[in-house]
């Protein structure tokens, strides 16, 4: 029996949506969990061997960033970390489909998309270490700040897309990332309304990872999420989020539609959060170990690896070299994270207002002399 068959045949097995998914004829898949290439009439891609290798490289390095960051949190170097384990294909696939001038509005788990946009993972570590609140410039990488309030950024994405329309031409588009939990937020539904009525060039990319902390998908919806799009007046597509090729193909097509004036699309990337919600969470309290085991068989890296081998696109030396690259990246992250200096205390007053503030200047000066008073006391007692 093939690895995936059990889910198709075992009708009673209801593992975090897997059964429903496997029976969904609408699911776009280009690579089976066993690494077999399948074709789809509407969403297909033809990539070079170099592209396939490069996609796998991104998957592997992004996973390594995640593993290292989780370890750094356990070692007390990060305050918290939101792991993307299991969602690499959804993120790398969609992230690689973006054109450089497309804009991204992420939530807080989009480390793989950040990677594809050229945001140094060290900068992400800085956010979770607490040296800043997200120190990158969205305009440099066309990658917005992480949004902790879930769904809020879908409206920003829609507004940004409306701005693109007003700047003339539909050359570029916007992707808004959010999760199944965020789909319950008013803002996400308002963003759907706005994007639809203004025909905004925005792609809503929902990573349905089955769990919103401890709340299962059944607490967010009674219909498949991608079907909601129809009610707002635009297409919805469900893609196998553990399939990097399908995630790439579907996102690429949706972006092209947006650029050519066809308005928004909702993509539901059907995937699974293999890890905890964050390092502060304990998923063993709310989900079964058997569920995790079932999803492990759908690992996004393993199926791509299997494909690369089967197609003889790579040999062992590719993986050996990639492992070495990942080790080097991990070393850089460990060292860099530990050496990251805390911000100066008075930096707390920086960047509140573009126009400055006399009141804050006064408070800053007062606080500075208060801090200095400790130094004076220390000197006097010496």
């Amino acid at each position, binding site marked *: 029996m093939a690895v995936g068959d059990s889910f198709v045949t075992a009708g009673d097995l209801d593992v975090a949506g897997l059964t429903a998914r496997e029976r969904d004829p609408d699911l776009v898949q280009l690579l089976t969990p066993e690494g077999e290439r399948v074709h789809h009439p509407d969403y297909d891609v033809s990539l070079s061997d170099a592209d396939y290798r490069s996609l796998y490289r991104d998957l592997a390095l992004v996973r390594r960033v995640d593993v290292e960051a989780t370890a750094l949190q356990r070692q007390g170097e990060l305050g918290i970390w939101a792991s993307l384990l299991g969602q690499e294909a959804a993120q790398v696939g969609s992230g690689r489909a973006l054109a450089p001038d497309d804009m991204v*509005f992420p939530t807080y788990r989009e480390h793989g998309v950040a990677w594809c946009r050229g945001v140094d993972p060290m900068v992400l570590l800085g956010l979770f270490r607490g040296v*800043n*609140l*997200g*120190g*990158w*410039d*969205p*305009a440099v990488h066309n990658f*917005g*700040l992480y*949004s902790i*309030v879930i769904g*809020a950024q*879908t*409206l*920003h*994405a*829609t*507004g*940004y*897309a*409306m*701005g*693109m*329309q*007003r*700047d003339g031409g539909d050359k570029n588009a916007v992707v808004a990332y959010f999760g199944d939990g965020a789909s319950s937020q*008013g*803002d996400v539904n*308002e*963003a759907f*309304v*706005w994007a639809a*009525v203004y025909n905004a060039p925005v792609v809503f990319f929902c990573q349905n990872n089955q769990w919103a902390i401890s709340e299962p998908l059944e607490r967010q919806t009674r219909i498949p999420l991608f079907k909601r799009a129809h009610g707002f007046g635009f297409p919805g597509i469900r893609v196998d989020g553990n399939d990097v090729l399908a995630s790439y193909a579907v996102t690429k097509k949706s972006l092209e539609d947006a650029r050519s004036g066809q308005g928004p699309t909702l993509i539901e990337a059907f995937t699974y959060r293999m890890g905890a919600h964050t390092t502060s969470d304990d998923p063993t309290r709310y989900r079964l170990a058997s569920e995790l085991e079932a999803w492990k068989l759908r690992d996004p890296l393993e199926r791509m690896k299997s494909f690369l081998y089967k197609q003889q696109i790579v040999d062992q030396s590719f993986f050996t070299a990639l492992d070495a690259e990942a080790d080097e990246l991990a070393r850089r992250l460990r060292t860099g994270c530990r050496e990251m200096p805390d911000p100066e205390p008075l930096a707390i007053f*920086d*960047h*509140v*207002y*573009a*126009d400055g*503030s*006399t*009141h*804050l200047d*006064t408070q800053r000066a007062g606080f500075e002399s208060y801090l200095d008073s400790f130094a004076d006391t220390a000197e006097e007692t010496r």
Partner: protein
Amino acid sequence: MARALNEGLRKAMEADPKVLVMGEDVGKLGGVFRVTDGLQKDFGEDRVIDTPLSESGIVGTAIGLAMRGFRPVCEIQFDGFVFPAFDQIVSQLAKLRYRSSGNVRMPVTIRIPFGGGIGAVEHHSESPEALFCHVAGLKVVSCSNPVDAYFMIQQSIASDDPVIFFEPKRRYWEKAEVDPAMTPDPIDAARVVRPGRDVTVVAYGPMVKTAMDAATAAEKEGRELEVLDLRSLSPLDDATLLESVRRTGRCVVVHEAAGNGGLGAEVAARVSEAAFYSLEAPVLRVTGLDTPYPPSRLEETYLPDLDRVLDAVDRVLAW
């Protein structure tokens, strides 16, 4: 005043093609108070945007537009309707600059017709300004007359910081000549609108007229009230406030919002901290009651009026 705001918006839109006006009914209708009257006709639907009935959407998309380089001016139709947009204002608009280490600008103006006195139904007469003053990253201002309305709206739009712009809806029909050639006061400066030596009456927005009426009435009893229009609610212009109170030695703060946790408490605290030895009496507040805004047949009871201001003046003078 509504006309002055309209002219100010028009001027700003002419000066900068990136200025957009967006909100519910702001297009063909010209806004429920006609503040945006005629703008869509002259600037088109792409710059004067009739939006879905979606307040969080109005502010949330304005944030995205601002990130794209636009200067959106959002109209929230009534004070009590701003709360669905509260998260976007407080957690997003106010903080994006700080969160991005200064990389993101948020030149968004949110116009809110506020306050009572027009016989409206519930949620149409509220004064939520203190809620916004508590949030770092926002500027909060209120105009009290047509001249300020004309200039302050332009100054707000020109600012790279988000501005919550409170328009006193019951003063929309106040009239005054506006000279567009004059040099306006800075937007963050308070102004002594009537000098006097006995008591500083601090007000803003709709209550400035009430304070002025009180000063006129008090004059007949030989009392000289100094009326200070705060104009900027956050930041507060401490210098002008303290200079006035140090001179008069007495301070009464007037606002329509509930007193508990209101802006009057902040004014009183700052005066007490910085000008304690100049005070001849405690700072008194004349405010709305600590109740929800009542049905309109009771709003005259709720709202501070001339008599309540004069009563407080009597009490600080009797100290």
